[in-house]
Every structure is written in structure tokens, then in C-alpha cells.
């Protein structure tokens, strides 16, 4: 009998502390498998955020550093410049990256830092009890928007992938989802590609992953996956927003 699926050696034995059904765990696994399959796991260095993934340093079987809230791209910049041959990544939530850390991510991206950012967008502040995030959808109920996000005074969701793809520094920016098996497979391919382009020195790479927070959304794990599919994806379309290695479209429209 052959092993079809087993836990990757790039994840430690320690069980995740995430709530039941929270897709942070799936995203951890995809990052770990990508590092392993590219043969860059042994020497990779990750930077953990402040947020529910704060203990990411306990889960990845590579060197990890903890950054102050939102500052992971700045910390990763320093690490990468000292260790240019190593795979360096940040793992950040939307409160961490798109709120307190907005400056750091924009400047790391525009400098073309050769790092990979895994941006976990669950449209809420999970760790602190479900407050509204910059990425919260219009009308979405959170503890600080109990009647739903009112765009007349709270504005609209920040579309990080679209925004960063206007810059010259990034080499690869994609948005993926992990709400079902086909999408999980696509998410893994995008994460692998991002790390690959980082190692080729092409520039800054980011994969935005739509993720669930069943606990603070007040949904079952199953309902949460449906909410990603039916509410989040229409607001945050999936796709590749920037890829410096993509072939330009042919006149016949035969772009791959």
C-alpha cells in the first residue's frame, strides 16, 4: 500500500490551536507542502503575524520570527537582505496586513522585496473577538458593526491584491480560496508559483487566500465555507492580478 496523503514533514507535530473548521490550518498545510516540494523548506524563514496565526512559529518546521503587529514585511525585508538565498515568507491576517500594517506591505511590495506574503483574508479580526476589519463586507455584522458595515461612514472593503498589482515591484499577485477541494488545489499551485518566483529573484510575491472564521462569523464550519463561496468571492474575485512571467496575449486570443 502506498501513502496517498500524509502530514508533510514541514509541519511540526504540535496540533493547531485554531477553532474547529477554521481554514487557517488548510493554508498552513499548503505553505508547508509548497516549501517541501520546492526543496526550500529546510532553510526557509517565516515571519508570523499578530492575529490568530500568532503561534505559526510553533507549527512550521523551519526557522520562524515573530513580528510586531503589521510589521512582518519589514522584518522579512531585513531577513531576506541578510540571507538572500533563503526563502523568506510572511503569514498575515487582514487586520495585520490591511489595517495596522498597510504601510509596511505597500512599501515592501513597491520596493520589490524578494519575499512571499501569504495574506489570509477572513474579513474580520478573529483573534480579538470579531471586530470589523478593513476587509469586512458591506452589511457584514461584526461586534463593532452590529447593524452591518455601513459604507456611509465605514467605507468599502480594501482590495489588497488589486491595489498592490498597480505597483511595479510585485512579480506575482493572486487571490485564491480554500472553500473546496478544487480551489485548495489551485491555492497550492499559486503558493508554489509565488515561492518559485521569489527564488528566481523576480520580485515581491503575494497570495491572498480567502479564509473562514466560523467562530466570529457566527456560522458552522460548513456555513462558513458557503459564505466564502457566495458572499466573499463576488466581492473579492479570484484570479491572478499580476504575473511578470505570463505570456502576453496572442492576436488570436490564444493566451494561456
Amino acid at each position, binding site marked *: 500500500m502506498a*501513502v496517498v496523503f500524509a502530514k508533510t514533514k514541514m509541519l511540526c507535530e504540535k496540533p493547531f490551536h485554531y477553532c*474547529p473548521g477554521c*481554514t487557517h490550518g488548510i493554508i498552513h498545510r499548503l505553505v508547508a507542502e509548497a516549501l517541501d516540494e520546492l526543496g526550500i523548506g529546510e532553510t526557509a524563514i517565516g515571519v508570523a503575524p499578530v492575529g490568530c496565526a500568532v503561534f505559526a512559529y510553533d507549527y512550521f518546521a523551519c526557522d520562524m520570527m515573530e513580528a510586531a503587529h503589521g510589521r512582518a514585511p519589514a522584518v522579512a525585508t531585513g531577513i531576506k537582505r541578510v540571507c538572500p538565498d533563503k526563502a523568506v515568507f510572511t503569514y498575515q491576517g487582514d487586520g495585520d496586513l490591511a489595517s495596522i500594517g498597510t504601510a509596511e506591505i505597500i512599501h515592501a511590495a513597491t520596493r520589490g522585496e524578494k519575499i512571499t506574503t501569504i495574506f489570509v483574508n477572513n474579513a474580520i479580526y478573529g483573534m480579538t473577538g470579531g471586530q470589523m476589519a478593513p476587509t469586512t463586507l458591506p452589511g457584514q455584522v461584526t461586534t463593532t458593526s452590529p447593524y452591518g458595515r455601513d459604507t456611509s461612514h465605514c467605507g468599502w472593503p480594501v482590495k489588497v491584491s488589486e491595489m498592490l498589482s498597480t505597483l511595479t515591484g510585485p512579480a506575482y499577485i493572486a487571490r485564491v480560496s480554500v472553500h473546496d477541494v478544487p480551489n485548495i488545489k489551485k491555492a497550492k499551485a499559486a503558493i508554489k508559483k509565488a515561492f518559485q518566483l521569489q527564488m528566481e529573484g523576480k520580485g515581491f510575491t503575494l497570495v491572498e487566500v480567502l479564509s473562514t472564521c466560523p467562530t466570529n462569523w457566527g456560522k458552522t*464550519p460548513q456555513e462558513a465555507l458557503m459564505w466564502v463561496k457566495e458572499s466573499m468571492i463576488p466581492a473579492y474575485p479570484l484570479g491572478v492580478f499580476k504575473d511578470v512571467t505570463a505570456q502576453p496575449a496572442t492576436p488570436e486570443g490564444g493566451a494561456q
Partner: protein
Amino acid sequence: MAIVTVNEDVCKGCGLCVDACPKKIMALDSSRINKKGYHTASCIRMEECIGCAFCAIMCPDVAITVEK
């Protein structure tokens, strides 16, 4: 036939593997409880398992191993 093993100690009974299985042979066992207090998942008709690993791919706690 394939063999699906659930690491009971880390399963959180979220049920995502149950919904992901195309053969509908994963189930939460309400008569069992692990040390964290969750009803754990297991494969209830192993002879029907096709070894697709959808259950394992969907498991947020990487609790499932699949052999074929």
C-alpha cells in the same frame, strides 16, 4: 480498497471531511469523545473508499492519512 486513518487526538469534529467525501462514508461518531471533548470523525465503510483523499485535503487539522 484504501485505508483512511484519523488521528483522533487532533480531530476537532468540524465535519468538513464528512461533506468533502464523494462516497459519503466519513461520519462524526457521537458515541465517542476525544480528550479535547470533540466527537471525532472516522470512515464508516472503508470497503467503499476510493482513496481520493478529499477528506484529508479538506481537513484543517491535517488529521487524516490515506493509503491505497
